[in-house]
């Protein structure tokens, strides 16, 4: 009886050991084990080289390529065309090329072709342009009239077509300096070539006498001559509003800007501009008239304007981007604006701000008024209301 028990135990142990030896090792583990802590292009290339040299037949290359495609963003090589070419090089050459039209017609080696298409699909998703090496590799692996070659041809046709269609291009690598990023963003949204960018405050860190550390955020503003003249003509009895933060998306990055604007002018207060009598006197030049009043009837075929009522909105006087969205920082922006627009000193300024995801509420004179609460009603009542910061700067 003891001998039988020992034999059974030995069999169990042997079975367990045998079972452990046959456990599958996934390709994801290969990447994770090889990389360790550093995940760079060199490590990625090394893993690919190890796989290529392990077996001359390259068994399991489809699974390996799928795992590599999934791991590319982790290694930071998803926008590198040489890495994609190296990955395509994992396929065995000349094996999947169809030898006759029957093989070509019936989707020769469908899984391998699908894998090749997926590599190109990932290139397309990340905006990577294939090159000649990619084409040579695909022709060697799959042949001329295969699905990956068709995909390659489509990419080479449509990518150059749509390369320059964006009238507001965004660089692939955004500037990392917040001041440069703010300049780029404000120039984009100003939509005026005469607008001038002013940097009111650079980011800096000071240490006061008491040992306290004070961080000053950056403040970058933009204003065009038209906005400046509009602000100069603003009625000092009516307040101006500092509103924000408003989002602006640059590729995958969201930046926030603030506006200095006014309420729309009521219809009864609209005054037409006075025309200089000097320009319409009888002594004006007939060859270069300043004002022409011809009562001509315009044919319908020459009317290219749209019959739409204008949307009544308040004028925008200035825009800025700041490192922090609290009232103290934006007050400094208003103070900077007063250097070019002294009338701002007489106009009451109302801050109509909402807290952003990264901003800190450090305002101390935070008191709410029912008028402004009504103005900033939330559309979705179920949504969690963000904290508001309001105040009046006189």
């Amino acid at each position: 009886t003891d001998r039988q028990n020992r034999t059974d135990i030995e069999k169990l142990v042997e079975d367990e050991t045998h079972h452990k030896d046959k456990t599958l090792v996934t390709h994801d583990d290969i990447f994770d084990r090889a990389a360790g802590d550093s995940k760079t292009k060199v490590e990625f290339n090394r893993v690919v080289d190890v796989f290529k040299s392990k077996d001359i037949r390259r068994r399991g290359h489809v699974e390996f390529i799928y795992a590599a495609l999934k791991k590319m963003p982790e290694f930071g090589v998803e926008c590198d065309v040489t890495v994609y070419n190296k990955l395509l090089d994992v396929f065995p050459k000349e094996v999947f090329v169809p030898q006759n039209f029957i093989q070509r017609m019936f989707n020769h080696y469908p899984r391998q072709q699908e894998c090749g298409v997926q590599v190109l699909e990932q290139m397309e998703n990340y905006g990577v342009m294939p090159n000649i090496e990619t084409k040579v590799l695909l022709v060697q692996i799959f042949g001329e009239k295969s699905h990956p070659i068709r995909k390659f041809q489509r990419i080479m046709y449509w990518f150059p077509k749509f390369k320059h269609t964006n009238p507001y291009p965004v660089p692939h690598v955004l500037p990392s300096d917040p001041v440069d990023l703010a300049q780029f963003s404000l120039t984009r949204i100003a939509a005026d070539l005469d607008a001038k960018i002013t940097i009111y405050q650079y980011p800096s860190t000071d240490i006061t006498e008491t040992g306290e550390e004070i961080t000053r955020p950056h403040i970058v503003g933009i204003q065009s001559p038209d906005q400046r003249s509009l602000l100069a003509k603003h009625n000092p009895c009516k307040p101006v509003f500092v509103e924000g933060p408003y989002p602006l998306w640059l590729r995958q990055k969201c930046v926030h800007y603030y506006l200095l604007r006014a309420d729309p002018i009521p219809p009864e207060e609209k005054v037409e501009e006075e025309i200089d009598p000097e320009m319409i006197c009888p002594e004006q030049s007939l060859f270069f008239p300043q004002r022409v009043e011809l009562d001509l009837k315009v044919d319908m075929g020459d009317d290219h304007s749209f019959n739409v009522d204008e949307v009544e909105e308040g004028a925008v006087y200035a825009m800025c981007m700041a490192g922090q969205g609290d009232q103290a920082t934006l007050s400094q922006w208003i103070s900077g604006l007063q250097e070019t627009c002294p009338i701002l000193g007489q106009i009451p300024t109302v801050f109509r701000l909402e807290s952003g995801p990264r901003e800190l509420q450090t305002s101390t004179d935070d008191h709410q008024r029912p008028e402004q609460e009504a103005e900033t009603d939330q559309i979705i009542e179920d949504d969690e209301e963000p904290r508001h910061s309001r105040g009046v700067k006189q």
Partner: protein
Amino acid sequence: MAVSRTTLKSLYGVCGVVYRQPLLFPSSLKCASIQITRSKFERDYQRPGQPPDTRWPWQMINFDFSKGVESVRKHFGLLKDEFFQRWIGPEGKPIIEHMLEQTRVVWEFRGPESLNEWIVSSDQEIGGRSVAYVSLGKNNTTCLLYGTLSSTPPRDGETRYSGYCSMRSKPPKASFDRKKHYDWSSFNTLHLRIRGDGRPWMINVSAETYFSHQRDDIYSYFLYTRGGPYWQDVKIPFSKFFLSSRGRIQDSQHPLWLDKINTIGFTLGDKADGPFQLEIDFIGLNNDCAHTEEFAYELYKKNP
């Protein structure tokens, strides 16, 4: 089917705190948010894992007398309009105006009734996590499309990509629910006045097709928004629209036929997760005499 608030609440609970950026002009109406989704019979996508709908056809119909009376009144009103418009001219316009007009405003957003022609959808109805709403902007003007984009695919084992929000106009209907089309043959440029947040969008124009398997064919082009507080005038020639079907640009291209336009739509799917916002003032058509291009893409023989 309208998305109920409970569903939205549970969705917010699942996703945690959904931060929403302030609108450029938050609407003063408290209940101005209109959640419109496409109707039951327009939806033909069945989510993976969902059991098929085994209800009988008559069980989907709801009998309502007041709606019937309202429907009869509406249809006979449309029939009367169709009858009497013929004496004036095409589509109720004098012939001289029809021949000489250079611009036309097709959709202008003024007042809550102008939003009834639009359907908002996102990949929430196919298992994703994006949400989209449409409402009026400030002063009850301009259409405001906003929400949150999320490109996390649903874990159903089949879906590979996710993350879109779209708004599409309803097809025009004649009396007694007969099919009707827009005729834009006299124009060659689409003109929009929009204000976005810097994200790129897609404009989709759907035309009438002869075969039913071409139901998913749309003509698309890009709509690059600038961002910022100023309005942006966008002019897109119809020659730039390319044929795509189910998100894939087709190899056999041909220009858009402008005499039977069904719908126009806007789709966002740029894989930048976060809130989005698009404000539309009007959508119009323009006859740009300086633009003489017929089609921007080559019509070579396919697979030579």
